[in-house]
Each structure stands twice: as structure tokens, then as C-alpha cells.
């Protein structure tokens, strides 16, 4: 892992649409040890927050800084060596192989689509290994299932080898098996020292895997802390406007959220 990857958001404001809500973050630090989840209802600002944090959007006011340097003043390559970003969808223009997809992650390090430098070859192998896609190396994207495709994209972000990785709903539209495979891969990387910030739709996955959970509501941080504390039935009812039951996972004692009729 190269670079530290500490993100600071200070008095950030971003108006989504005229007449709509505004993202307002007085102060937020991302990039601590382990895995940090961002959850909240649809349209609460999860993706926008990640895009601001990744430097894909500029805030209307306020500052985003990476390791003490303003993100706006850094070149994209310098950012990419410290900070990775995996969007929700990566629509492919051509039918790349899994290895080529992973190798794209080496761009900021000067790597090629057909990795030829020893450092790039090793990084691509590590990334494919981390998502358990080593044997899929030569397969094309068109031959993969939805879950395998998402793991190939994840391999691309991992091959980048940043200090901090932001992911926007990497388990979206995946069944339980594939969602768990993605989260397991992230958990292994987090245990190796990669700092991870992941927007998640599924509160139960967030509770199971995250060390810290940020709940967003209408563009503002509604709660921030360990999932145990953040996921109380009262708060979730206020957030989603529905009655929910929070019980304990029989193995891990982590919170499990159940819908109520």
C-alpha cells in the first residue's frame, strides 16, 4: 500500500439540484483504520459525498484535503496513487479481459493494459488474487456474471494500490453469495492495512463488516460511530420512516435489522 490517505472535509457544501437538498458536511475525517460504511436512504447523498471525497466533483464551498493537501490543487495521477475510487457502474466500451480490467488500475503508476513491468504484473496478480479471480484472468467481461464483473472492477481499484479506497455500492444488485464475496475481499484488504470507505445499501452487510458507520439523511450526517451504536431502532425509524426491529446476530452479536409489517 502506498501513501497514507487521510481525507478531511471542512465546511463542505454542495447543492445537488436547484430546489433540492444540499449536502452539508461541517467537518468529517475519512480514512481511519479498517472499514467505514456510509449508509442512508436513497438520495440521501451517499454517492455525492463519495464523488466529492474522490475529487470528481468540486464542492460549492468548503475544502476537501488529502493528507493535508487540497484535493483541487493536486493532479489526478497524484491523487490516484493515494486514493482509489470505484463508481457504482463501470460501463465497458470494449470487451476487455479480466486481466486488462485489473491492469487499468495501474494507470497512475505508468502501467500498461498488458502489464509488462514487474511491479505492475505483481500488483495485478495480487489484486486478482484478492478478489479470487486468478483463474478468470483471460476471460472476457461478456463471459462473466454480474457478480464476477463487479469483482473484476474491484480488482482494478485494488491494483491501483492506494492507501484509501472509496467504493460506491460495490454490492449493488448482487445476490447474497456474490455480495458476501465482495465484502470478504474488502475485509481481507482492510485487515492488510487498506483503509476503506464504502457506501452500502444493505444495513446488515454494513453492520457485519464495518468498523465505523456513517448514516446520511438529506445530505447531512445523521449519525457517525460504531454500527452497534449507530443502528438503533429509534434512529432507523426516523431515517427510513418505517418501523424496524433491531435484533442481534446469533454468531457475531452485531445488529441485524428486520423490517416490520
Amino acid at each position, binding site marked *: 500500500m502506498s501513501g497514507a490517505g487521510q481525507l478531511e472535509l471542512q465546511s463542505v457544501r454542495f447543492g445537488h439540484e436547484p430546489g433540492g437538498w444540499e449536502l452539508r458536511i461541517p467537518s468529517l475525517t475519512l480514512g481511519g483504520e479498517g472499514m467505514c460504511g456510509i449508509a442512508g436512504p436513497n438520495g440521501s447523498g451517499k454517492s455525492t459525498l463519495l464523488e466529492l471525497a*474522490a475529487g470528481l466533483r468540486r464542492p460549492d464551498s468548503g475544502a476537501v484535503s488529502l493528507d493535508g493537501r487540497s484535493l483541487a490543487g493536486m493532479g489526478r495521477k497524484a491523487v490516484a496513487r493515494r486514493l482509489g475510487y470505484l463508481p457504482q457502474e463501470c460501463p465497458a466500451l*470494449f470487451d476487455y479481459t479480466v486481466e486488462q480490467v485489473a491492469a*487499468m488500475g495501474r494507470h497512475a503508476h505508468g502501467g500498461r493494459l498488458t502489464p509488462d513491468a514487474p511491479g505492475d504484473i505483481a500488483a495485478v496478480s495480487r489484486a486478482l488474487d484478492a478478489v479470487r479471480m486468478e483463474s478468470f484472468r483471460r476471460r472476457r467481461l461478456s463471459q462473466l456474471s454480474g457478480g464476477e464483473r463487479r469483482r473484476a472492477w474491484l480488482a*482494478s481499484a485494488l491494483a491501483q494500490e492506494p492507501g484509501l479506497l472509496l467504493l460506491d455500492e460495490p454490492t449493488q444488485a448482487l445476490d447474497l453469495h456474490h455480495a458476501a464475496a465482495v465484502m470478504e475481499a474488502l475485509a481481507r484488504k482492510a485487515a492488510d492495512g487498506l483503509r476503506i470507505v464504502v457506501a452500502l445499501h444493505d444495513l446488515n452487510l454494513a453492520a457485519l463488516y464495518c468498523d465505523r458507520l456513517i448514516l446520511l439523511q438529506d445530505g447531512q450526517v445523521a449519525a457517525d460511530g460504531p454500527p452497534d451504536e449507530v443502528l438503533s431502532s429509534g434512529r432507523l425509524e426516523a431515517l427510513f420512516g418505517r418501523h424496524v426491529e433491531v435484533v442481534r446476530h446469533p454468531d457475531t452479536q452485531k445488529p441485524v435489522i428486520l423490517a416490520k409489517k
Partner: protein
Amino acid sequence: MIKNPKLWLFFGFFAFFGVILPWIGAEQLDVGAVWGGCWGNVTPDSRIFFQMRLPRVWMGLWAGGVLAMAGAALQVVFRNPLAEPWTLGMAGGASLGAFAARMCPALWWAAGPLNTSQALALLGAGGALSLVLAVARRQGGGGQILLLAGVTVGVISGGAIMAASGLVSPDKLAGFHRWLLGGLDAADWRALGAMMVITAPGAGILAALAGEYNPLGLGEAMAAGQGVEVARVRRWTAIGAGLASAGVAAVAGPIGFVGLLAPHAVRRWTGPDMRLVLPASFLAGGILLAVCDAAGRWAAAPLEMPVGALTALLGGPLFLWLLAKGK
């Protein structure tokens, strides 16, 4: 890249056609007479070879090459496998600008290899692309809207040229008949120089960006996350492709589909790596245009078919097929 054997194969064909094609044409040339021309013994044969055929074939190789590079790059930055200078309206806009400069004496001005037909062609290409992008953006930037707008701008430009040509005296227009359909008739060393002055910087810009194109294959958000300055790459690609389209159109008129045919053929061999696709497209596009032009000269000699019509006959069906395939 330099070590890639496929690229050397393309280069071998490129060089082969550069030497062989000048021998093809209405007039059968005598090898000995042409060879004598190299040593100062000028004959009609050597004059045809060195003053007409050679610049024409090499212009075909060069023009086809830069158009193919422009197509390959535009396909990636606009994320549309059917994008190329003609389908985005750039070739049409450039031709309209070049036509205006040549037909209207008030707009004509020249200095060495530079003239106002190149400047107005550049303006036309840029204006056409801006218009097409503005229309597409209003519709959410969707893929096929881009092409629909591009082809329409091309048709409008063609209509404007046809309308304006009605105002030009027939004898002045006769010399432009081939140019209107896209042809290399005007080729001599000066015309080739004039084309290269404008297109070489364009090709240079696209070549310099080759390394930035690959991550764009997984979308702009992913590419930005991986360290590509997406807006800057897009802007410079538009400039590079605009220079290529304008430089070619100013001399040879609207030649379409080379930027579609060559990259699609090349990618079957090289895969999608743009570091290979760009140089290979240059070589393949050059071969394609030069061979089409030679075929047009040879098929009904001494009559000629304009090369722009031939590339449209080859590229149009490919365009339709790719459109039907939905990719």
C-alpha cells in the same frame, strides 16, 4: 509498442503499398524510364510517377492514417464505437468551411502552405462538434443521439455546400466536383505539405494522449478515479481530431468512414489497448485510403471514381451493421 510484431506487420504493408501503388493507374509506366528519372533523366513516365502518382499515394496513406487515428480516439473519449470525424459531423463542417474559403474570393488568403481554407475548415470542424455535443448534452449525452446529431450536421453541411455551389459559375465549379465527393485529385507535393502542416500536429496530440485513453474504456468516473484528467483528455482529443479532419478536408474534401473501418479492423488483431490501436489504425487507415484511391483510378481507367464515394460504400454498411448489432 516498438517491439510489437503485429505493428511491424502493419508497417510492412504500409511501406509495401507506398512503393507499389504509384505504379497503378491509367498510364502504364516503364520501370526503366522512372528509374532514369531518379538520376536526372526526366521523361514523361518519370514525371507522372514523381509529380503525380507518388504524392497522391503518399497523401492517401497520410490522410487515411490521421483520419483513422482521429476515429479511434473519438470512439474512446465519446464512448461510442461508431464515432469518427464524419459521423460526428466534423468532416462535413470542415468541408463547408474549406468550400467557403475557396469559393468566396473575399475569404481567400494564403501564406506558404497555410491558407484560409484550412482555418475555416478548422472552424467548421470545431463548430460542428460543439453543436453536436450541445444537442447530445441536452438529451442527456446518450450514445445514439450523438450520432444522429453528427450525421445530421454532416447532411446540413453537405446541403449548404450544394446550395452555395449553385451560386458559383459552372467552369469554376468543375474543378471542385471531385473535391465535393472527397478525392485525392488535387494531390501534388505542395498539397501534401499543406495537409501535413495542419494534420501532423493533430496526429502528434493524439499520439501523445495514447497512454491516457485506456482507463476511459470503463467509464469516465472510473478513469478519473484511476488518474485520468478526463476533461483535459477530451478537450485535447477534440483539438487533435479537429486538426486531422480540417487538414484533410481542406485538401481532399469530405472523406468518411476511414476512422470507422480502420480502428474496427485493427482491434480484431491488436485487442483494445489504445497504445497499439492508435499507431496500428494510422497504418491500416493509410493503407485503406491509398488502396481505395488506387482501385478508383484503376477500375474504370482512364475515368476515376472519387475515393470518398468508395470509402462510403465500404464504411456505410459497416456502420449500419454495427448499429444493428447495438454496439
